[in-house]
Structures are given as structure tokens and as C-alpha cells.
């Protein structure tokens, strides 16, 4: 086996000395994320600029059997880019080019380090009639990482998971080959990640970098209307929320549906805030959509079970911002900036049970909670977040938050939910419950693609 020093030299040879580090401060930083998973240091942090460099690094790692973990902004909060077995963290931020926007086929091709904020800004400036589905993570979150974890965003109610909006991939396989997935494998156009070909994107999306490193990604873009507004409804019976979400979805007029619940600030206590976002190119279009939404919910309004809250401009601004800043605010409720959530993907009928569980667990472990639910697809499922904030200086509070999270995750699984961006503990829970033949298939795929098990080891490890 090559010595650490020799490995370092080889990495420097590939990317240059400014983009390789084994210094303590880098190893400290890349050992952790903002969540509750214990840190583990990498041996090297490497920042490639090109797919060719990524290939060379992967070949080297494969040859030397050194673990390698691709990383975007590290915002999943579930430790997915913590190098559980050390090795190389591959920070993709230097691959930051927006390569192509095809206006007529409505897609963009980006490199792996392009962030949500940069793409948003780029589209606003150069293609103002197009937009992408912005998740509520901070703007430094990358497009690729969000797709890899099956993120959701502002257009998920209409178009599903953000990974459903992928229109092509370029991937460095664990053995170093560069591979194109989707229409771009046979054409210069990146309009489809699969159809009409065999859809191979599933070999990489949702695998948390354990099957390859995405270097380029095509992403579907959608019409960007000139106007956007929010309609805010309040309910106080959890049992009504699934039907309210379905009715909103039924209108086919709503871009995004989000339901928030929290005991603080006081205005939130005792009510669920249902936010329906609408867009239009004219006042008339917006007004028509408003009417459709009102009509859809009128029965509940008339029975006094559902209220409409007129929103003042100062209140509207944060509700309209993309991404929402509420997550960041919530992260510091307990002071000390700690926050993590379990966000199972689940049928929307589970909302009442999940809310009850959240309140029960928060009381049991004495932790501050909040929940944000996002409707995905036309009522096909929802992401329900069991969110807990904690003070990083308070180890007891962190331990309680962790217990609370795992209890919620177990509950969600028992209730038929599927854990989203599961940490390694939750991945085990999922695999314990998974169809054994599915597990065998996963194992075969993993072994086929990554025979030396170098890719983000510890994650999706089928025993």
C-alpha cells in the first residue's frame, strides 16, 4: 500500500497542491456536518476542477483501496458526507460551471459544485422565464447533492421529488470510467434521464455517492411566471390536514403546499399553518387561481374549521423567500445553532398520527420541536419533518434530541413511511425492514459497481 505521503503526492499531481489538504483544520471541518452524527476525520480533502481529475482521483483511490466521499455543501445534516472510514473527501465546489441552458427543451446542465443560489441567480438574470425547484436548504446547497438525496423544493407539489426533475447525468464510476446516463448518452441533448432508454439514473440517485460520483447533471426547468403569491390558511384539527392538502392538490393550481406546526412563536401555537403558493402572469390569472383555492376549501371555511389569514407585506416577505429562512431561524431557537430533523416520506393520511407523535416525543425528551410538511406530487406522498433544535454546547440536550429523532424515525417506519436521507443508523433500520430480495439486488449492484467498496463506505452497506 502506498504511504500517506506518497498518496498525498499523487493527489497533488492530479489537482495541484492548493487543492489537497491533510491539515488538521481541514480534517476537523470535513469530519462533521450540522447535525447530530459523531464526527470522523478524513485523511485528505481534495477539490477537483474537472471530471478528468475526478476520474484520476477515483482510479487512484480504487487502486489503493482508499475510501472516497463526494461532498457538496454537506447540508443533509444526517452525516452522509462524514467519512466514516477516513480516506478522501472530494469537495466538488470547484466544479461550478453552468454549462448549458436549453430554453426550448427547458433544462440546464450543471457541474457538480453548482449551488442552488447560483443557479437561481443565473436563471433570474439570463433566463427570467425559467426556474428550477428550489429546496428550503441554504442557497449554498448544491443541485447535485439535493438530487442525490431525493430532495424536494418549491415545485414538488406539481412535479415530484427534485430527483424526478433530473434530465441526465454524467458519472465517474467507482472504477474510474466516465459514463453518461439518459438521453445525453446517445444525443447532445440532456432532456431525459431515462426514457425511452433503460433508466440507469436509479443506480446513482438516492445512493448517497456509494455507487459513483456525479460530475454533471441535467435538470429540468419550468416556466417562471411573472407573479407569485401565498395564500395562508390555518386549521386546528390535524385530522383535516390530509384532506385539505388533497383538495389543494386537486385544483392543479398550486405550485407548492407546505404545512407548518410549532409551539413558538406564540402565534403558531395550537394551529397548523397551511401555505399554498400560486403563480400567474397577470392579476387575472392569480385571481382565478385564488378563487379556485377558495372554492376547494370553502366547506372547511364555512364550518369554521379553517381560517384564512391575510398576510401583511412584512409577514409575506419571509414566507415568500426562496429558500425559506425559517429553517435557519429554527436552528437557533435553542441558541448554539444545532438542528436536525427526521423527514420521512409518507402517505399524507399519516399527518395526524405523526403530529401527535412529534408532540409526544418532544415532551418526553424535553426538546423544542417544529414540523414542516411538504406535499410531493399530486398527493402521492409528503415529507413530514420531525425537527428538533438544540444547543451544541449542551451535550445533554443533544443526546435528548438524538433519542427523540430516532424514536420518531422508528415510529415513521412502523407507520409505513420511508426515511428520507437516512443516516447510517436509519439506513440499518430501513434495510432491516426491506424485502430481502431487494437487499440482495442492492448488494449485487453495489458490488458490481464498486468492487473494492471504496465509495462512501458505511452508507447503504448491505451485510
Amino acid at each position, binding site marked *: 500500500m502506498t504511504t500517506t505521503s506518497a498518496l498525498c503526492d499523487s493527489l497533488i499531481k492530479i489537482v495541484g497542491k492548493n487543492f489537497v489538504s491533510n491539515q488538521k483544520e481541514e480534517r476537523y471541518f470535513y469530519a462533521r456536518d450540522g447535525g447530530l452524527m459523531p464526527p470522523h476525520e478524513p485523511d485528505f480533502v481534495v477539490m477537483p476542477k474537472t471530471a478528468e481529475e475526478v476520474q484520476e482521483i477515483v482510479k487512484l483511490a480504487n487502486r489503493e483501496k482508499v475510501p472516497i466521499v463526494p461532498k457538496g455543501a454537506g447540508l443533509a445534516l444526517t452525516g452522509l458526507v462524514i467519512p466514516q472510514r477516513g480516506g478522501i473527501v472530494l469537495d466538488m465546489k470547484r466544479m461550478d460551471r453552468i454549462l448549458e441552458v436549453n430554453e426550448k427543451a427547458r433544462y440546464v446542465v450543471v457541474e457538480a459544485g453548482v449551488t442552488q443560489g447560483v443557479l437561481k441567480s443565473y436563471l433570474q438574470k439570463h433566463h427570467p422565464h425559467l426556474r428550477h425547484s428550489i429546496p428550503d436548504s441554504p442557497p449554498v446547497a448544491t443541485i447535485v447533492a439535493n438530487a442525490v438525496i431525493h430532495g424536494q423544493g418549491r415545485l414538488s407539489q406539481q412535479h415530484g421529488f427534485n430527483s424526478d426533475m433530473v434530465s441526465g447525468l454524467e458519472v465517474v464510476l467507482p472504477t474510474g470510467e466516465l459514463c453518461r446516463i439518459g438521453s445525453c448518452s446517445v444525443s447532445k441533448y440532456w432532456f431525459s434521464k431515462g426514457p425511452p432508454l433503460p433508466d440507469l439514473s436509479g443506480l446513482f440517485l438516492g445512493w448517497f455517492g456509494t455507487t459513483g460520483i456525479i460530475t454533471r447533471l441535467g435538470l429540468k426547468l419550468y416556466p417562471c*411566471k411573472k407573479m407569485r403569491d401565498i395564500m395562508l390558511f390555518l386549521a386546528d384539527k390535524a385530522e383535516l390536514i390530509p384532506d385539505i392538502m388533497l383538495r389543494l392538490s386537486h385544483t392543479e393550481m398550486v405550485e407548492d403546499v407546505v404545512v407548518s406546526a410549532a409551539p413558538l412563536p406564540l*402565534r403558531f401555537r395550537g394551529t397548523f399553518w397551511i401555505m399554498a403558493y400560486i403563480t400567474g402572469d397577470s392579476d387575472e390569472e392569480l385571481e382565478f387561481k385564488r*378563487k379556485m383555492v377558495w372554492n376547494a376549501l370553502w366547506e372547511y371555511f364555512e364550518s369554521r374549521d379553517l*381560517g384564512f389569514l*391575510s398576510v*401583511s407585506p412584512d409577514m409575506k416577505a419571509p414566507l415568500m*423567500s426562496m429558500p425559506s429562512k425559517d429553517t435557519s431561524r429554527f436552528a437557533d431557537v435553542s441558541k448554539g445553532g444545532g438542528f436536525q430533523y427526521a423527514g420521512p416520506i409518507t402517505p399524507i393520511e399519516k399527518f395526524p398520527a405523526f403530529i401527535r407523535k412529534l408532540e409526544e416525543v418532544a415532551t418526553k425528551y424535553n426538546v423544542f420541536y417544529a414540523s414542516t410538511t411538504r406535499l410531493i406530487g399530486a398527493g402521492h406522498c409528503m415529507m413530514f419533518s420531525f425537527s428538533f433544535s438544540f444547543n451544541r454546547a449542551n451535550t445533554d440536550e443533544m443526546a435528548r434530541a438524538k433519542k427523540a429523532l430516532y424514536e420518531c424515525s422508528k415510529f415513521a417506519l412502523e407507520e409505513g413511511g420511508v426515511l428520507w436521507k437516512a443516516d447510517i443508523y436509519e439506513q440499518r433500520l430501513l434495510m432491516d425492514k426491506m424485502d430481502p430480495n431487494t437487499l440482495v439486488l442492492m448488494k449485487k449492484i453495489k458490488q458490481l459497481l464498486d468492487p473494492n467498496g471504496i465509495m462512501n463506505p458505511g452508507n447503504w452497506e448491505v451485510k
Partner: protein
Amino acid sequence: MPLPKLKFDKTKCAECKAISCLVKCQYMDFKDKDKAKKEWQKVINGEDSSVLKSCTTCYACEEYCPFGNHPFYLIVERQEEKGILPAPRPIITMWINQCQPVGRFMVGKVEERALSYCLLPQFNTLVKGKLFDGIALSVIFGQEFFCNAVYLHYAKASVIKDRLPKIVENIKKQGIKELVCLHDECYGTFTSLTSAYDIDMPFKPIHYYEYLYGRLKELKDLIKPLNIKAAYQRNCSARLCPEIDHYVDDIFGLLGVERVKREYDRENALCCAEIFRMAMGPVLADDVQKRNINDMVRFGAEYCVFNCPACWDSLAHKVVKQGIKPIHMIDLCKLAIGEEQALKLPELVAEV
């Protein structure tokens, strides 16, 4: 401590021939005085009445009653007694929770004369410049000083009766002798509501119009007449203190502003109607707002002068679409003395 009781004199109603509380109502059809009298008697008696369900909570009957007998407060009491919800339950819950005192006293350098921002942060923007020299820092704000009149919209007189005496006490404890109320809701609370519920007032409430009028007279050398035609937007809580309305004319007179003589002003004013949207849905609210703004246009208003920040939030961007400039009364005074408008039109459409 027992909750204060409404001082309501049913003999005044018995003697009343006009039944103005219902006959003048803009939202209920009581042109027939006999019918109105019978229906109002039901309200007095605590019987079921269509009034309790049809009331839009516009507050106007408080102004219409020639005896100051507080018909609206009685309606609110009766609605609560019967569990009638003028607005959806979750909205009422939200309001009750949002404004509850939490022991957080937000005060400036409070002196014997102070300004009340109530729970309206917009005043942080508006209260600037020469008009507020010497008093701008003497400010109280937040739930501990929140006037609570809003619960009149939600059939929650009990919340007012529970919280208001403590609010009055909180203000007294600040050593305030004169409280300049920057919102009609506060002024109406500390004049009309406290009187109706026999709550002792240890300080003197001053309406900010009276304050502005006094300051403008002191600053008269700075005033350059604006020579504009303006529609005045009366708000719901102006109905709790109609005696103040003359200050609008007085101030406009000093500033060279013509208050257009339109259909929906003074006693016949239409409120901003946003409370109707929350209580009854969009149809009535849209209709009232449309009639109101069309009326401003019809009578040639160049400006719409707002008293209430909530009305501003509801209507400012809508009047602009009809070519009318929205401005708050404080800003109007500032313009006349050469200062800038502080409260600007909100962005209508957030980023996409």
C-alpha cells in the same frame, strides 16, 4: 378578580325610535324599523337573533348609536355567550395566542408623555422627524401594552375583560401620564372600551391626530401647502372614537389637502374589509374594497390617506393600481413640512 361588566342601559334602547344601530348598518338589511326594533330586542334579551350571525364586526353601530349605549359591544358579548364564531376558530386561536402578554416589556426611554405603538411595528418606520421631536424615544410596544380591542372582531369580550385591566396597569407602571395613541384601536380602547367596562384609567389617552395637529401648528412656518385632493380611509376602530374625525379636516386644512366629498366617507365609510375576508371569505371583502376604491377614483382623489397600518397593508397596493397614491396620515404631515414619506408601498410580488 371578577371580570368587568358591560355598562349597557336597555332603557335607552327602549326609548330609541331610530334603531340606528341596525337601520344604518351597511351589511344587514334593516330598513324596516319595526323589524329592526324587534330583532334588537332579541339581542338585548339574550335570545337568538340573525344579527349575531350576520354581524360583520365593522364596529360602525358604535358610532351610529346616538346614546353611546355600545350596541356593538353587546353584540360581541351575546356572540360569545352563544358560542357564535364570527371568524373561523383557528384564526381566533391564533389571535388569542399571538397577543397574550408574556412579561416582555418593550419600552424606550419612557417619560410622562409617551407614544404607544401598540403591536404595530410599522410605527417604527413612521415615527421619525420633526413631528416627533422630544417624544420619539418615549415609546411602549408589544403584548404587554396591546390594547386588545381586536377581540371585538372575534366574539372574545372575555379576553378583553381579562387582559385590558392588566394592560392599563402595565402602562401606569411605566409612569405614563399622557399616552399618545398612534392607532384608533388603542385610543378607542382607552376611551370607549374602558368606559363601557368601567375600567379605571390612570392616564390620559391622546389621539395622535390631536398630537399631530398641535405639532403642525407649532411647525406652521415649515408647512408648504400640498394642494392635493385626497380620499380619507376610515378604519373600523375609528367608529370607537368618531369625535376625533374633525381632526382629519383640521389637519387637511393646515396642509392644503382637500378631503374629497365621496360617498364612502365619514359615517358612511367603508372599512378596509380585510377582516371580512378572514371572517366571511373573499366575496364581500372584494366587493367592499372595489366599491371603496372606485369611489375614491370617481371623486377624483389623487391620494388615499390612511390612518391605520392594517388598512394600509390591505389597500395600499390596490389603490395604486387605480392611479391613487397611498400615504399614511403621519407621512402626509411630513410631506407638508418638507420631509420624506417613510411608509412606502410594499412589494406586491415577491421574487420567483
